[in-house]
């Protein structure tokens, strides 16, 4: 069976600086997979190549059976690749509902319509509201993002991506900036995500990673150091050396 998302010998260098070195990576259908690594390991570059923001220097990216290496961002989204952003990338002056509805409208092909009012598309609004309800944001639908507490903004970040009904979802530090007392809210939401979506999470919060992920890949200096189940990674000496040691006790 083909992977939900796969990279083959993916490389990226900026001049002499290599930030991705022959990354072979498989994200299985329905996976709960985490990508970790110290700062500067190349995690963000990797995500940017997967989503089409950065072209790789060499190598291939496959979404299901399709080679998407040369496709632009929008095409990848249409094929079912969704993402969230480490730093909130929201429509700050728009209501929460519109933030999600914009994504739903793009997916359903409603967005280019000019003749009828947006609000004359109750199906888009209803789907947006239903999605907000599953994330516990129904009461905030009319609020502008600006007026929303930060933790809830992080949830809207996820809601927009879910509005695209992705087959593969890349979560770039979903709990970034959220106080650890509140990060359990994020985890609750992540736990309830539809099981058919293959999820790759990039996260610094190790508690969250070890509670959420069933498989972990450790990236160090642009290379895959090791990949395995959470308990294997937790026991791995090399991982402790380069990463967990400094994170947990540093």
């Amino acid at each position, binding site marked *: 069976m083909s992977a939900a998302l796969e990279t083959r010998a993916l490389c990226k260098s900026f001049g002499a600086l290599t930030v991705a070195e022959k990354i072979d990576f498989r994200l299985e259908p329905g996976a709960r997979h985490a990508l970790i690594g110290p700062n500067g390991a190349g995690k963000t570059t990797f995500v940017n190549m997967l989503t089409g923001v950065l072209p790789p220097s060499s190598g291939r990216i496959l979404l299901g059976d399709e080679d998407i290496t040369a496709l632009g961002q929008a095409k990848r989204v249409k094929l079912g690749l969704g993402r969230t952003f480490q730093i909130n*990338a929201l*429509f700050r002056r728009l209501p929460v509902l519109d933030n999600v509805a914009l994504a739903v409208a793009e997916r359903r092909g409603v967005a280019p319509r000019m003749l009828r009012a947006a609000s004359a598309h109750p199906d888009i609004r209803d789907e*947006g509201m239903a999605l907000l309800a599953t994330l516990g944001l129904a009461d905030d639908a009319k609020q502008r993002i600006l007026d929303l507490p930060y933790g809830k903004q992080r949830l809207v970040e996820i809601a927009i991506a879910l509005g695209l009904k992705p087959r593969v979802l890349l979560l770039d530090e979903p709990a970034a900036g959220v106080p650890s007392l509140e990060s359990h809210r994020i985890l609750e939401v992540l736990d309830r995500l539809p099981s058919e979506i293959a999820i790759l999470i990039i996260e610094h919060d190790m508690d969250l990673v070890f509670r959420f992920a069933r498989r972990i890949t450790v990236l160090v200096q642009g290379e895959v150091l090791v990949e395995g189940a959470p308990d294997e990674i937790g026991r791995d000496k090399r991982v402790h050396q380069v990463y967990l040691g400094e994170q947990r006790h540093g």
Partner: protein
Amino acid sequence: MSRHAGGYSADPRVRAVEWLPWVVALAAFFLLPEYLSLGARILIYMLYALSLDLIVGYAGIITLGHSAYFGLGAYVAGILAAKAGISDPMVQLAAAAAAGALLGLVTGAIILRTRGLTLLMLTLAITSVLLEIANKASSLTGGADGLSGVVIAPILGMFKFDLFGKTAYLYCLAVLLVGWWVVRRLIYSPFGTSLTGVRENSLRMHAIGAPVYWRLVLVYTISATVAGVAGGLLTQTNQFVGLNVLSFESAGELLVMLILGGVGRIYGAFVGPVVYLIAQDLLAKQFPEYWYLGIGTMLVLVVLFARGGILGILDGLIARLRRKA
């Protein structure tokens, strides 16, 4: 007159207060017959400012070159009337619209790949190039002397342009009404909502799979079409075209009007030209040397203290009154 924004929960019905500008415009027609030529000019600038609000206020495209499309529309209508012997105003207006659309599509497709300052410079360059072409092609455009001999047949074969500007005023009002209806509908549509998305966060629009570039090219083309119509109207009411329609000053002046009225509110494009052009008219009569100082002071005050323009100030006042009540 609060901020008009589309969206999936916005009520698109026309509110009672939105009929106010039309009532005022009709009242002015009956009460101020000696000011109808200024009135027609204001109506034309409202349409022109509305076209600018669509791209600046809603799509977030900043430009100093919108006079390119306005000026092209003015010259196309003028050349048809003065050189080609096509005197039907509807045909002239349609040609001005088509020319604006074509230029908007071609230039938009090139410049909208860029952003920020580069984009701003490119918009300036386009109108400068057009100005130079109009200046050099004097056999067609009259060059620096301007294009005169513009002949306009009665509208629909029935309404003759009269000396007092009555027909011209009502004609401009009717065209503005159509332009307003189109722009307003667009803003409340899913397309308009997606433009607001691009303005707020184009990075995210890419990430939800929106073809951002094509959306921008499309709205730019629509805006250029409306600007072309406004230019055609100016030719028809003035029966003359001067090089200044293509100048960068005219584009800058338009932007000032829109900022003064309020950006991204539809009706900022109505309030701005009224205030600006009436102030210009009054101040130029009273203080012919200093009137620009008055305009400048007004703009500085708005930019410093009222970022939402005059309508923004009104919104603030209404909100305060409601809280007290």
